[in-house]
């Protein structure tokens, strides 16, 4: 318990550090949230200067940081220049949408990749194994953006799935069951694309870890004792391989909010992705820092979960 508390304490420190560094780095990079307006001939230079004053962008870095901290303390999480609105409400709903997508994709990826990896480890060098490796090599060689575009092409040419968005126009008129089906239809494409791009990583790590466990002395011994192959794989080898996989799971959780940006942009998923990308390009700093912090929270939690799981899986580690 004390361990968890101290980890969460570290987590807070991490958030603080990340926010300070974000402000510092953003200050070093060219442009600010009003620079784009400077280019817009619709807006006079005087108006841009006035905006800079209004948002306090003309103030020194420490002043801006303290202002932001105060705004975070009040729950606003900063102020978006682009939307002229507090950052918090901008983020919450979109973060929820992103989580729906990312969690579905993660579950999909792990459900398929873990058995596939275990199976491949048990039959190394077989044609099935090679096929799996080749498939994951292809998936690694094309970016997820290309995968998303291919998904889009598929949806457009078959008409089986909607080509983007999260809900049909008549979503509100649907009943509970209809809404669930509508959401599932819209979720299918982006979730599969994301799961495909995550598949090679999970598949390869599972395969490598299980392969190694199969060669470890105790599994060899168990095999010598005539334990059936299937039981050997799932009851002995997989648990023995669990530890590096748990670390990987932690990293997957950590990436939940930040891993789907491009897929969301291509498939018009109303999540954090489009907002974040726009904010980065427009230097809408508070939105970016807000999103980074949210994502860091997941990072801290993901790694904490991973470490706790490590303890739980292997009592021997507890001694340390």
């Amino acid at each position, binding site marked *: 318990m004390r361990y968890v508390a101290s980890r969460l304490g570290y987590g807070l420190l991490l958030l603080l550090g990340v926010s300070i560094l974000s402000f510092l780095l953003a200050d070093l990079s060219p442009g600010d949230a009003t620079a784009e307006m400077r280019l817009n001939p619709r807006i006079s230079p005087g108006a841009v200067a006035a905006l800079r004053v209004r948002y306090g962008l003309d103030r020194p870095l420490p002043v801006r940081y303290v202002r932001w901290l105060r705004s975070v303390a009040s729950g606003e999480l900063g102020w978006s220049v682009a939307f002229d609105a507090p950052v918090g409400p901008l983020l919450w709903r979109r973060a929820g949408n992103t989580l729906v997508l990312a969690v579905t994709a993660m579950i999909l990826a792990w459900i398929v990749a873990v058995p596939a990896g275990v199976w491949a480890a048990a039959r190394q060098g077989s044609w099935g194994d090679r096929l799996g490796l080749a498939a994951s090599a292809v998936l*690694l060689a094309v970016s997820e953006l290309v995968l998303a575009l291919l998904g889009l092409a598929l949806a457009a040419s078959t008409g089986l799935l909607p080509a983007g968005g999260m809900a049909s126009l008549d979503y509100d008129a649907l009943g509970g069951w209809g809404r669930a089906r509508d959401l599932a239809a819209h979720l299918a494409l982006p979730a599969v694309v994301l799961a495909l791009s995550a598949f090679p990583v999970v598949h390869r790590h599972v395969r490598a870890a299980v392969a190694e466990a199969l060669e470890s002395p105790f599994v060899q011994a168990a095999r010598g004792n005539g334990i059936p192959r299937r039981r050997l794989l799932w009851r002995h080898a997989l648990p023995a391989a669990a530890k590096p996989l748990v670390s990987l799971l932690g990293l997957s959780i950590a990436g939940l909010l930040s891993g789907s940006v491009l897929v969301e942009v291509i498939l018009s998923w109303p999540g954090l992705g489009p907002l974040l990308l726009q904010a980065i390009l427009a230097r809408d700093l508070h939105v970016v820092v807000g999103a980074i912090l949210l994502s860091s929270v997941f990072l801290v939690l993901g790694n904490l979960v991973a470490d706790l799981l490590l303890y739980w899986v292997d009592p021997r580690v507890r001694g340390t």
Partner: protein
Amino acid sequence: MIRGVITRGVITSRRVSLALAAGFLALLYLGALGAGFLAPYGFDEQDREHTYAPPVRLRFRDGGGRLHLRPFLYIGVEKPGAPGVYEEDRARAFPVRFLVPAPPGRTGARVRLFGVEEPARIFLLGTDRFGRDQLSRLLYGARISLFSGLLAAGLAVALGLLAGAVAGFRGGWLDQVLMRTSELFLALPWLYLLLAVRAVLPLDLAPSGSFLLLVAVLGAVGWARPARLVRGAVLSARGRDYVLAAQGFGGSDGYVLRRHVLPQAVGVALTQLALLVPQYVLAEVAMSFLGLGVAEPVPSWGTMLAELERYDVLISYQWMLWPAVLLTGVVLSYHTLAEHIRERLQAGEV
């Protein structure tokens, strides 16, 4: 008996795939180094009459049905009013010639392995939007991408292996410090750092400069993930009885680490390496967007793959997929090599 045959079968097929993988990679690296000789054109030679021209058809049989030993081709002519649709002009056949002199150009090559007489062009893998030969660009692009991807991934994994092994093996405060630092690295807005870096650099970066920058940045940023994974593997190895036993028998930390723990971690590290190489080739696209990649007209596989990210290119021009095909081959080959190294390590041969 039967089992033995199967095992031997697997072993031979493994040898074969190892040879294939090594051969493929060797060919690619040689091709990259010898691009000046192998590529039929310079990487920047535009032919604006042949934008997105499909791969040329090499022929052996002419209109009269006669067979030729030396392959030949016809000129492709864009159909008026139909951009991107080419028809062969059968009026004149252009035989493929070997060891042709190269015109002076940016690439400095003197002699090329093969070519055809102007005005015909030999586009074996088709052309891009500017009518540049895909094959030539793939060869020259491999110079940057094959090396930068491997070097950057190697750097990241080496750093990660070191940090992860130390953290997992020593535990305690060192573990805490390293792991919390890795979290910081995972969470940081690198984009801003890169933007800041770009702002202080001169406007025109030489390709060699971008190359080193690419490797350094990707490697330095990327160590955190492998470090966490290696640590997981080390923790599990350290708990094993034989490791505890080795420690009990008074094996030094260094000995135990080297003899028992690292081999466990190396599996994870090699898997990461095989995963990171293609990721880092692709990462170059993002870097180009920030102005840190390789600038036009110098090709890299990353920028060639980025072409695929335009819907119409992906759907209409299949030959633009070649960089993805080659990269798939590279991934598979690296993986096969990594597997082999891991097995050797576990067998204690290193």
